[in-house]
């Protein structure tokens, strides 16, 4: 059976689930962020695959670029928060960051 749309979607689904698992289980904020990047990559594979396998023009690819950009912005801000957290608590375990007041 030759590779078609479904294969790409299955791949993306596996990647998504791995990312989800990392987000749920990891205590370390940086690894949670990595899990989020996996999820975004999975979504991107779907965008590009649909752009290839359906009648739309290249909109999927444009969306993929926008997703990459958003991921970059998110990573930048999230890591800044992680570093700030570390300065205050000397730890980046998310369980210990349960107070809203600085």
């Amino acid at each position: 059976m030759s590779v078609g749309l479904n294969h790409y979607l299955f791949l993306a689904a596996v990647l998504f689930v791995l990312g989800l698992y990392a987000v749920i289980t990891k205590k370390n904020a940086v690894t949670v962020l990595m899990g989020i990047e996996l999820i975004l990559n999975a979504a991107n594979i779907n965008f590009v695959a649909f752009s290839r396998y359906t009648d739309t023009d290249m909109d999927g690819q444009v969306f993929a670029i926008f997703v990459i950009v958003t991921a970059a912005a998110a990573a930048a801000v999230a890591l800044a928060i992680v570093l700030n957290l570390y300065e205050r608590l000397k730890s980046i375990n998310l369980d210990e960051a349960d107070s809203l007041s600085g």
Partner: protein
Amino acid sequence: MQDIMFYMFAALTIASAGVMVFSRSVIYSAVGLLFTFFGVAGIYVLLAADFVAVAQVMIYVGGILVLLLFGVMLSQRVTGVNMRTETLQTVPAAIVAVGVLFILFRVISKTEWLVKAKTTFEPTTAKLGTLLMTDYLIPFEIVSVLLLGALIGAAFIARKG
């Protein structure tokens, strides 16, 4: 040949994503992520998205991964022992993950997709440029505001630490 390449890249992507998720050390997770990003770039090439593939390598590997590594270096005692990342709620997470995977697989295989595959491989850069300047002009300009906000906000938060 393309099918073989697909399976190779898919295997690389999933295996390295597995390393990322299940390794105990943050740095090993980062290395796993490096190969995941590379594998996904390969998948994009097979989907005829050459520009997106290179952009993926450039931003994810060259930008986000480097930033993550810098963040790791800055936020923990950088020795082998203390780079551990603990896990919790493994069992419920596994149940949720398998459940979601099952649902996704079922949805994907049951749905009748309106497939109309393209078979040609054409350069995409010029077309992307035109689309960004015409149809996607507003999102494109908003992206610059988003990036500005991210830059100012992140620099502000990091400096306060």
